[in-house]
């Protein structure tokens, strides 16, 4: 399937894209992370959460939706 990956906060800066499409065969969020880390090694150093269907998911969740959000924590106030 073709996934749309959306990056927020500093993740958009370090990957230099706010949004990209990616072909992904099948698998869990952990499998998707492997693909993303290969493409953007710098992501591996960062703290963030993954959401699909407007819900945060864990590493063993199955990727079933075409739109994935990667969201880092913000510290600023």
């Amino acid at each position: 399937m073709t996934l749309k990956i959306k990056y927020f906060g500093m993740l958009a800066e370090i990957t230099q894209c706010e949004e990209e499409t990616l072909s992904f065969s099948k698998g869990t969020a952990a499998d998707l992370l492997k693909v993303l880390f290969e493409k953007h090694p710098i992501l591996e150093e960062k703290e963030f959460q993954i959401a699909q269907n407007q819900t945060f998911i864990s590493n063993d969740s199955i990727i079933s939706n075409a739109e994935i959000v990667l969201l880092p924590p913000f510290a600023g106030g």
Partner: protein
Amino acid sequence: MNRYSRHIILEEIGAHGQKKLNQAKVLVVGAGGLGCPVLQYLAAAGVGTIGIIDHDVVEESNLQRQILYGTSNLGQSKAIVAKQRLLDLNDTIIIEAFVEMLTHKNAISHFLNYDIIVDGTDNFATRYLINDAAVIANKPVVYGAIYKFEGQVSVFNYKNGPNYRCLFPNPPSKNDIPNCAEVGVLGVLPGIIGSMQANEVLKIILGFKNVLSGKLFCYNSKTTKSFTISIEKQSNTKLKDIEKIKTNFQNQSIDQICDTIVAKTTIEDAIKKKNSLFIDVRESHELPKAEHLVHTNIPLSLLENELSSIDKTKTIILFCQSGIRSATAASIMLKHNFTNCYSLENGIEAIQNYFKINA
């Protein structure tokens, strides 16, 4: 009650709701970009007791977004100036100003005096401290955070709902994500996010349904796009860190080291880190040795004297027998501006097991 007439004529509030506001006690931690609009709207709404904790003074670069302060306040305490400004806005309420930092020592006793805690801070260490102390004191936290043009809002620990650690279990390393001072922020953004926090506070006090609990609201001021993501409450096993920290809180009179939250790492993650330096902080006679791991030995008792010999550009992984002394060591190093240091969970045992499997 002319002051609150526009509230009272609302069917959803009325005199009864206004009385609830007047009886409520809210503590705002941080009187900066987020704290200013929160404080202003809560005071105007007639929230009866408002606490302000901030140890900072007003700087010129704050005035672009911290709307309670003026040029004549430069150099003055934010908490004190905010109190004066808010009492001018509404002298029928009580404002308690605390010119101090929130610490592990004072957090719980402060929190117990209020109904709701507002997180308007600008760093992760304090955000995790607020979360953990609120979980222990059983108080809801109205959370807001910003980065450049983006903001997040949620309500944590509300009626047994998820807390901040359900969303982001581990604090990022100290300087992993910079604050407004380092990266900049659009001045109006904390105004928007802080106003949304004030809105959630009022909803909680008034007993409205649909409080923003179990959800993270995300907003981008550049695109005017927003979305909401559901947060699931994590099981207790995933939140064992809070239990550990609870022990720390309770032992605080004996063990006063943890004013900074120490980043922990597993051996698997530690091995993957680039440009790393492993340091054994046990005494030199302690066994077993980490013989398969390239490392250096600096006993905790000598660490402060040896800091100048440690390369600050390295990712420092500290280990000991179980992870307790290494956490102390990491805390010491953080205080000396080593921004990238971790305490290895389960210490030498984790190393032994790792090399047994990956020999």
